[in-house]
């Protein structure tokens, strides 16, 4: 160990109480940052996965322009060719096809405007969580064509129940009138009011028949092995687009493009979180600044003597910076360890925040929240604390460069 490092380590323990308090402040900031960042990122992943599972999937292939303008005629003409291609792409967990139509739905008593979605019940159950969201009745079977799943809020509005009939009236792909009577087989509740109020699901074959779709669909909905794989899978799809789309104008979209509102919500929340973290780090930085300023002021005489016997100011500055780094590293390591342990505990058991269930439900988040520890969440915050601490100890250390031996030694 170099003598500077040895001196630095011994110097920081000359005032153990002050050192312990400073280390505790750094460790606390590190711990809070590890936990809060893990918590935020964990919540975002839950939000994304929940939304993705309920409606959009991680990725979709659509006809060019369908995302912006949901016209019936903007279709994927040959879904089988897309299916053959998707079977070869690595990182895809499952995929399914959907078709959507905007209709009026009527019961005996009321009429509402809704989106009717044609689904392949078996494939849909692997891609989305809709099967598990059915609260009344049962999920669709593979050969169900004129039976439907409807949202709980819509069923309340229409005043219908299981086995009741509803009439849908819309426009087919060829401009013809699309009309059918559907029997309600199941009622789902996702917790997302907009979804539960506006969506009806029925068998894809029945939908294609009613809406004159032929074999075409509107969306190929894809889930990746994990959220982290989405960009890679998207890249794979886009790289091979020319081989699969033929003369069709198709677009490969990820969840951020399909649900920009969710992304903006996450970004807003992240920004507000970052502002809070910056405030926390600044408070800690002032504490560190104060500690180092005190440590330097009370040792001015000692620095004067060191300069008198030939130590250069830069060497003393280096010594003081070593002291800062030693203390910060100990604090940061403790912060990461404690923060990670706390996070791992709550990652297993979750956190219940009373009174927020309804709000969370609207974002598809369960009432128990789970932080998720990752390399980024465990290191990003502490790294910022390390840098800020380093900078805040640098300014007091600069004072040493201005010291003159005689004046410093005269300091009491």
């Amino acid at each position, binding site marked *: 160990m170099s*003598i500077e490092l*040895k*001196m630095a380590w011994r110097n920081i323990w000359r005032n153990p109480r002050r050192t312990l308090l400073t280390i505790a402040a750094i460790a606390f900031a590190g711990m809070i940052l590890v936990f809060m960042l893990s918590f935020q990122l964990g919540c975002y992943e839950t939000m994304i996965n929940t939304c993705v599972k309920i409606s959009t999937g991680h990725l979709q292939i659509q006809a060019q322009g369908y995302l912006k303008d949901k016209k019936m005629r903007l279709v994927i003409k040959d879904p089988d060719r897309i299916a053959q291609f998707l079977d070869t792409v690595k990182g895809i967990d499952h995929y399914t096809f959907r078709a959507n139509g905007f209709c009026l739905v009527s019961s005996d008593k009321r009429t509402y405007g809704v989106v009717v979605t044609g689904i392949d019940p078996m494939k849909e159950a692997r891609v989305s969580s809709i099967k598990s969201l059915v609260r009344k009745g049962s999920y669709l079977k593979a050969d169900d064509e004129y039976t439907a799943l409807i949202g709980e809020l819509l069923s309340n509005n229409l005043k219908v129940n299981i086995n009741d009939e509803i009439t849908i009236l819309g426009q087919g792909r060829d401009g013809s009138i699309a009309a059918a009577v559907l029997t309600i087989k199941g009622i789902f509740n996702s917790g997302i009011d907009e979804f539960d109020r506006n969506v009806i699901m029925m068998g894809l074959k029945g939908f294609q028949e009613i809406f004159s779709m032929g074999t075409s669909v509107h969306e190929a909905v894809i889930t990746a092995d994990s959220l982290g794989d989405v960009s890679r899978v998207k890249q794979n799809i886009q790289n091979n687009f020319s081989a699969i789309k033929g003369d069709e104008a198709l677009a490969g979209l990820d969840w951020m493009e399909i649900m920009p509102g969710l992304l903006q919500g996450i970004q807003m929340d992240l920004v507000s979180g970052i502002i809070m973290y910056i405030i926390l780090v600044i408070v800690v930085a002032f504490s560190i600044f104060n500690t180092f300023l005190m440590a330097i002021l009370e040792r001015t*005489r*000692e620095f004067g*003597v060191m300069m008198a016997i*030939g130590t*250069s100011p830069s060497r003393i500055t280096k010594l003081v910076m070593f002291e800062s780094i030693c203390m910060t590293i100990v604090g940061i390591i403790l912060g990461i360890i404690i923060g990670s342990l706390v996070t791992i505990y709550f990652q297993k058991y979750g956190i219940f925040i009373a009174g927020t269930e309804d709000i969370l439900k609207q974002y598809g988040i369960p009432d128990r929240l789970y932080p998720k520890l990752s390399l980024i969440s465990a290191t990003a915050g502490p790294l910022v604390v390390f840098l800020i601490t380093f900078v805040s100890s640098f300014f007091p250390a600069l004072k040493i460069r201005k010291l003159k031996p*005689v004046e410093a*030694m005269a300091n009491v």
Partner: protein
Amino acid sequence: MAIVETKNIKKTYKQGKVIVEALCGIDLIVDKAAFVALAGPSGSGKTTMLNIIGGLDLPDSGSVIVDNNCFADMNQADLASLRLHKIGFVFQAFNLIPVLSAIENVEYVMLLQGVPKIERCDRAKGILDDVGLKGKYDRRPAELSGGQQQRVAVARAIVSNPAIVLADEPTANLDSKTGEDLVLMMKKMNTEKKVTFIFSTHDKMVMDYATRLVTIKDGLIVNDEIKA
């Protein structure tokens, strides 16, 4: 042969609104291997003189030459290097580095000079043995008596064979017996190793051991006595 030569050194300080004339034109020549005491009452300018000879402070006017190095031609970095290689300091309040052991304190100066570790260790042990601190190498300053601390300070000052050792009232914080032992030790170093000592004091016993007694009063040399 002169190791220190000062000509017409003047130095003033500002204390609040009052300007204090610390040195009013001092000429002093000290030969190599001398054992010189600067005597005089408090505030006479002894410490200021030592600080100027040691390159810790610069005079307002006049010239200082130490071991053929003229301070007028040197910047702060040059002066720091000169202090490191040519001058040893012993302070009234010992001023050892509190977090280093006795041997580490002595080694520290050699470390700054870039002396290899093994040589540093050997020389530090040897000099600590010479000042009577054999077996106390690993004690921190707080674990040593005042006399022992000052011995470590002397060892630190002379370990790198400086041209001169400047000691500012080295016995002021010691009892008379310990003080005398320390002066005898310094005298021994002076005699055996030909180290030049210049020290300030107003201790009669210390003055008795000096080979030359320079008395300063109100910033001027009022008496310069070569003793047998």
